[in-house]
């Protein structure tokens, strides 16, 4: 039995979840994504590749006659369930193409964008759903702590490709820092959890073990959260996931001026991408980060590939 898999899959339409729950425990444990597309086979993604689910919970690498096919109704029903039959509660997330779920899971959405005043206001006619299953790994940041945080706080950027374990590592790092598992000090940690993935707070309580406790700001836009946190929570370090635009970058840069450390993540699969991506270059330009932690692509998530000194990278990038 894999509790997190079962928890995530039980939110899918019953016609599909019934079969998905019958899948073997070994596959459940390895599965990190469930993909539904209208008129297409239901897929389970693992690090070893993609599997089709067949009737009776069997699975196969090749499509078979008994392969489970998601209908338009299945996808629509799943979308309604994922949003808790309350689209009004998820409008902002849906406009960004996802729905955050209880337990830290996240459903990515594809469909037809509804554009209003030049901005995506909603997505209708959902055609595919990618259900990402949240995993808790309480040793994800063990190596990071011993290599970077053993002598005190640093500001770091964790970079990696999608599904490389950036969020899992940040979550474990926050837990370790507030619990004194890095250098023996219990730091004041503020977690800016804009998408509700880092701590998955429900009813004021995080769904993941956060040790001695962090101050968690769920759903706040990063820029507003950083300003509010610096003003009122006096953090030692602010942890936030996926710096994605220049406004968020400016908020981080402002926080540096106040003596706060940051642990953030960006999408970049290698050193060359870090040096090429404008946002990553901007992060380096702030001059406030000490280390860039590059996660290994492919293979086991949360595996550190390289740790670069940010200053050296900045010089290499000519910023």
């Amino acid at each position, binding site marked *: 039995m894999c509790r997190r898999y079962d928890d995530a899959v*039980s939110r899918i339409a019953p016609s599909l979840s019934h079969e998905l729950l019958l899948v073997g425990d070994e596959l459940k444990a390895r599965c990190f994504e469930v993909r539904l597309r209208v008129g297409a086979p239901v897929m389970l993604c693992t690090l070893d590749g993609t599997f089709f689910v067949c009737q009776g919970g069997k699975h196969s690498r090749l499509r078979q006659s008994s392969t489970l096919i998601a209908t338009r109704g299945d996808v629509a*029903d799943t979308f*309604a*369930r994922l*949003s*808790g*039959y*309350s*689209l*009004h*509660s998820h*409008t902002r997330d849906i406009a960004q193409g996802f729905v955050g779920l209880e337990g830290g899971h996240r459903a990515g959405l594809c469909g037809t964008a509804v554009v209003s005043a030049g901005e995506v*206001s*909603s997505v209708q006619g959902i055609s595919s759903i990618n259900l990402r299953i949240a995993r808790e790994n309480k040793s994800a940041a063990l190596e990071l702590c011993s290599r970077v945080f053993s002598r005190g706080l640093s500001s770091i950027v964790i970079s990696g490709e999608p599904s490389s374990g950036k969020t899992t590592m940040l979550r474990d790092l926050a837990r370790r820092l507030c619990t004194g598992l890095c250098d023996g000090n219990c730091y004041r940690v503020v977690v800016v959890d804009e998408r509700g993935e880092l701590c998955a707070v429900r009813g004021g309580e995080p769904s993941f073990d956060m040790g001695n406790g962090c101050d968690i700001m769920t759903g706040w836009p990063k820029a507003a959260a950083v300003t509010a946190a610096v003003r009122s929570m006096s953090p030692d370090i602010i942890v936030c996931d996926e710096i994605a635009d220049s406004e968020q970058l400016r908020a981080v840069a402002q926080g540096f001026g106040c003596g706060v450390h940051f642990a953030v993540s960006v999408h970049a699969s290698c050193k060359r991408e870090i040096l090429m991506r404008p946002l990553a270059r901007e992060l380096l330009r702030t001059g406030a980060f000490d280390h860039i932690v590059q996660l290994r692509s492919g293979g086991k998530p949360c595996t550190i590939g390289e740790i670069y000194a940010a200053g050296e990278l900045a010089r290499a990038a000519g910023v």
Partner: protein
Amino acid sequence: MSAAAALLAALSCVLLGVRASGNYALRVSVLEELTAMTVEMRTRMEYSHACLCELLRQLSRQSTLSHLTFLDGCASRCDSGEPFPSAWDGAVDDFEATVPLHGSDIKVLRAMGDFAGITDIAGQLEFLRLSESMLCERAQDARQAQQKYGKVCVTLGVSAAAAVCLIFL
């Protein structure tokens, strides 16, 4: 023997009259609470954007909405994993059997379940405003009906009781 039967019949007539009158009053109370519920729902939804099941859970704890037993029923059904539309329908079905609401009152209530949660916040608030005004109208009708027929029912019951007594005694 016949005197006792006549008295029993007369008592039944009076009780029927009082009960019919009480139903008019109860309909007013329930419709007033339903109106208050939509106002409360709108306010809470606007403030917190909370999901429907959470809203219903909060409302079911309100002592001022004590007649609205379907709130708790619907929240419980949602908690047990039932999809919201069928949870709402099922809870309203159970509720309908326990209160003297008219078919048109129940129709407004059912429509709330059909539209709830399927639009953005602006759409939800507009729909709640519409439901509120419809329930207000229904409550107004119920009040008029209570004034018009409430006392008549008691009077009719007493008159029928008197007639029964006169005939049999």
